């Protein structure tokens, strides 16, 4: 159609699609984080979707007279504004001529709209499937580390195990377990996760490792190796940590991650990992502020932590 390239026919830029996209994003985030967020997202998406549809279909819903100047004949004489002025002078048009353009506009809008709806119905679940399983379907770990006698007081024992036997070697994890003795008659353990909090490489123990004393315990066949560790070092970028997991050198931004523990029937069980900022004091008397297990390289305390406001679930 010759009239389509002219300015009066180009729809003005609209912010509604952006609001609609924000709403959809909120739904997807909400499905992971919490249902209220999803509900808010749905409300945003519905509101902006309605405004968007209203905006797009505006030209169709207006009375026929309003689009009269858009007939081919008028457009050919030089644009809509001019045509509006000259409307009175124009010869009366046949009914067919008036109806022709709006109907085609309606049909193209309907085709686009229907296509958009069909596309959305297909795309949203597929995108959800592409993204969501990484955040849901996450298993909690619980690993038996064997009888308490395996852990001499004040010494680190290196425990390595497979988180998931079916997946295999790729799920191998290593923790450093230290028996801190009793604190107010309660047993105390420090369990450091071996993944460097710089960028996730496996930190290595600095000091003697008694490989010949290695033994395998428990259902998950955990390897326990006693050692005289004086600190930890990362081979990738040189991060160094002391025996509390505090950074002593290199690029790491927080102390080594730790794991919760429990004792059942005289056996030590490994619980969830968590992140810590900086550890004050040592051993059983260490003062720790716990944070959800965070991505390596991410600050959990201080102003830099404001850059990561939303906890990742799973």
């Amino acid at each position, binding site marked *: 159609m010759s009239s389509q390239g002219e300015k009066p026919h180009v729809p003005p830029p609209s912010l509604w699609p952006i609001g609609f996209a924000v709403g959809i994003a909120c739904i997807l985030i909400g499905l992971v984080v919490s249902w209220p967020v999803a509900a808010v997202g749905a409300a945003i998406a519905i509101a902006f979707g309605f405004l968007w549809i209203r905006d797009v279909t505006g030209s169709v819903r207006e009375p026929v007279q309003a689009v009269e100047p858009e007939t081919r004949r008028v457009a050919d004489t030089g644009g809509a504004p001019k045509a509006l002025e000259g409307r009175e002078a124009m010869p009366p048009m046949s009914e067919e001529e008036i109806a022709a353009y709006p109907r085609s506009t309606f049909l193209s809008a309907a085709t686009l709209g229907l296509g958009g709806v069909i596309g959305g119905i297909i795309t949203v679940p597929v995108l959800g499937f592409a993204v969501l*399983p990484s*955040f849901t379907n996450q298993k909690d770990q619980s690993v038996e580390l064997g009888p308490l006698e395996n852990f001499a007081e004040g010494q680190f024992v290196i425990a390595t195990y497979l*988180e998931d036997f079916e*997946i295999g*070697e790729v799920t191998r994890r290593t923790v450093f377990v230290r028996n801190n003795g009793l604190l107010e008659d309660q047993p105390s353990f420090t369990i450091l996760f071996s993944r460097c909090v710089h960028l996730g*490489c496996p930190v290595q123990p600095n000091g003697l490792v008694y490989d010949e004393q290695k033994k395998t315990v428990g259902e998950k066949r955990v390897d326990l190796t006693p050692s005289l560790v004086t600190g930890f070092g990362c081979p990738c970028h040189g991060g160094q940590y002391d025996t509390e997991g505090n950074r002593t050198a290199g690029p790491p931004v927080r102390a080594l991650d730790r794991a919760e523990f429990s004792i059942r029937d005289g056996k030590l069980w490994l619980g969830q990992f968590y992140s810590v900022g900086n550890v004050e004091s040592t051993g059983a008397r260490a003062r720790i502020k716990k944070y959800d297990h965070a*991505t*390596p390289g991410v600050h959990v305390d201080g102003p830099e932590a404001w850059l990561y406001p*939303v906890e990742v679930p*799973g």
Partner: protein
Amino acid sequence: MAVTPARRKSPRRAQIEAAALYPLDWLEERSGLVGAIKYFLFRRVPRDTSWAQTLGSASLTAFLVQAITGVILAFYYKPDPDKAYESIQIITNDLTLGWLVRGMHRWGASVFIILMFLHMARVFLYGAYKYPRELNWIVGVLLLTLGMAEGFTGYLLPWDQTAYWATVVGININGTAPFLGPFIAQFLQGGAAIGSDTLSKFYSIHMLVLPGAIAGLIGLHLYLVIRLGVTSPPWSPTEAGRERAPEPPSTNGREGLIRPSGRGGSNGE
């Protein structure tokens, strides 16, 4: 038209040529493809183009090599945590010519990236990114980014220690991006840590998502090159961006690949 008797072809030769050209004529009449390919290949370029202007074609060739060798490597590669490393060993050591094709893919990846950077440097130094070619620069930057993403995802696939820990580090670098970083990291590794999903996800992105996007953007890139033409170097004596000279009138209707339609017999009839 006047043709000297010395250049007149024998009727038999003319017959053979007509027979040889018949399929092309058939195709051209129904699709216009021959004309389109001719239009694409036999463009007018500035007189002072040099080898420097071939770096874009070289990048394209490198991409095609990656695409072909990649498809064939996918015949034999198994994106499973238990089998990936082993299947790479089989490709390299046991299968006939496997070492060559894997080597082409592995080293070709570096060649592709290097050629893209050289091409980018040429465009920058020649000022070929200026009006009206800014959009093509942007498309080129997207292609470079996608090419580097290919490098990142492909690096995991050998599934050895280097691949594994380099990917751990790469994913965690993504994880340090503000606000969405931790979500991006967890999406990439398909869970709280790298596992079997990470390998198949990277494989899918590496061989389906990114090559498709790169191919589409290369199409757009080439379309813009054809539409806007090749730039003269800044030191060119002829003015860049001048109007094209009008096409010289056809003399015998036989230049290039094919006759224009509607002219039946061969030359000299």
